[in-house]
């Protein structure tokens, strides 16, 4: 039963990984990578680590990949065309892939040493309480350093975003102004955003330099 689950999830992980490398459209690669993460989360559950499985789904599949998908959509990334450069490399690649396959088959079929049976319910290693106990007593220093690392990442991301171009220092954000992605990223097209205060349409036309619209009358 456990072997069947392992084969199912491992097959899904390897299949999605190969699909990710083989796809040329980066959005499809991102979706395949999400499939890999979900398959790995299921494998973690069969290994008796439910907390890590839930954290994998929340952090990797739910946050990091959302960020990657946002970037792909904002930058409008297109499919890549890979020119075939050296045809003589193909047999070498096939040979190496066959070697990898042979090694994997050898490990699965002929290596029978294992320290213990895998646990799904016997040990309490993967419970949240034991992870919490370890994180706050023995491994407190890595925990605190990780929080400082996250702070550095936040500051770094904000610095990269506030350089001239993404948010020019003299720009006034007018609510309701339709902002499209290209305008956000291109520093050359920041328009003049000072508001015009006027009391009639004529004054606005003078301020904008627009000539008066032709009046529609009954004479043709």
């Amino acid at each position: 039963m456990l072997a069947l689950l392992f084969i199912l999830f491992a097959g899904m992980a390897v299949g999605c990984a190969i699909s990710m490398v083989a796809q040329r459209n980066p959005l499809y690669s991102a979706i395949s990578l999400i499939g890999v993460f979900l398959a790995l989360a299921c494998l973690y559950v069969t290994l008796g680590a439910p907390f890590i499985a839930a954290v994998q789904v929340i952090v990797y599949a739910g946050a990091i990949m959302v960020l990657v998908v946002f970037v792909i959509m904002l930058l409008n990334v297109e499919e890549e065309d890979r020119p075939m450069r050296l045809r003589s490399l193909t047999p070498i690649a096939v040979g190496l892939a066959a070697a990898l396959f042979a090694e994997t088959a050898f490990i699965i079929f002929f290596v029978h040493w294992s320290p213990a049976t895998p646990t799904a319910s016997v040990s309490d290693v993967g419970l949240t309480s034991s992870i919490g106990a370890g994180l706050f007593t023995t491994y407190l220093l890595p925990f605190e350093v990780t929080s400082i690392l996250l702070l550095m990442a936040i500051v770094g991301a904000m610095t990269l975003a506030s350089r001239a171009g993404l948010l020019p220092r003299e720009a006034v954000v007018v609510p309701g102004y339709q902002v499209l992605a290209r305008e956000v990223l291109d520093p050359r097209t920041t328009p003049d955003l000072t508001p015009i205060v006027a009391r009639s349409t004529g004054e606005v036309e003078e301020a904008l330099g627009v000539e008066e619209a032709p009046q529609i009358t009954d004479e043709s």
Partner: protein
Amino acid sequence: MIGILVAFTVVMTMVAYTVLAERRILGFIQGRLGPNRVGPGGFLQPIADLLKFIFKEDIVPDKSTRFVYFLAPTIATTAALMTIVVYPFGPDIHLPFTLPLVNTNTIPLVIAKFDVALLYVLGVTSVGVYGIALAGWSSNNKYSLMGGLRSSAQMISYELALGLGLIGVILQSGSLNLQSIVEQQSGHLGITGWNLFWVQPLGFFVYLTAAIAETNRVPFDLPEAETELVAGFHTEYSAMKFALFFLAEYVNMFTVSMLAATLFLGGWNGPFVHQLPWLGVFYFLGKVVLFLFFYIWLRGTLPRFRFDQLMSFGWKFLVPLAIINIVFTATLQWLGVFDYIGQVLKTSTGWGG
């Protein structure tokens, strides 16, 4: 297996009638009657809507990427429906006889008992964001793209506030297992032990606001408002796929109401629930209906937030408030205030359950 079928049927029926109830209650708030022609008092309206969705023409835009276009409503609906398996609908029912096929005499009213049930719910909600982002992208329409990106940005910002608001409850209950959180909330007459009253009023406010923003409801529904962005990310969807998005939104509403009822309002606790266990189901569903009515009431009453107001509210107000709640709860837990409150207010089988 039977549990899944029963829960699915119950949830889908309640969601269908929530749509009808919303239209009628909104009508009453706005001084008109809602749909009341089909069946007595509009009772068969959901069936008429279902037939309409099935028979409508299915339009696929010309230059959209077809695989992602079909995948997006699937992801949205699946993620919305996957969360109903961990909620305890009631306490374990002990029958005086043993059932013939399964050879037990207890019927558990939870479909799946995890130890990390609460994290599972948060994880599945995170995956539901993809349905909206991919729908916005694959429609090849700039209104859909803007609506989809805005909606996804809103959802991932308020997911943070949602998770932080729940930490107070986890600190105080000491467990991520939903059945044990509910059991710890039993008190005198089934009401005094609820987490809302003495333990987490601030956490409840943070969670409820974040939940309304997560499900894209008024006052946070700029990404799908009809007058602002045509229809946002589901502009180009028609017939069954639109019905799936519509369904996913209402099931999401149902799911966060169930989570609020479980964590803050005591789940299946109520008067006399330990003597008559099957009353727990009615109490639980009654609390969920209360939340759904609250959602509909908000929709008829409040105006919308503008998008930059929405984002600054989420990041600059809710997240610091949730962190203050965590610090406060942790301090009270360490001082032992909650243990004292627990002795006074909570019982396991007190008078009246």
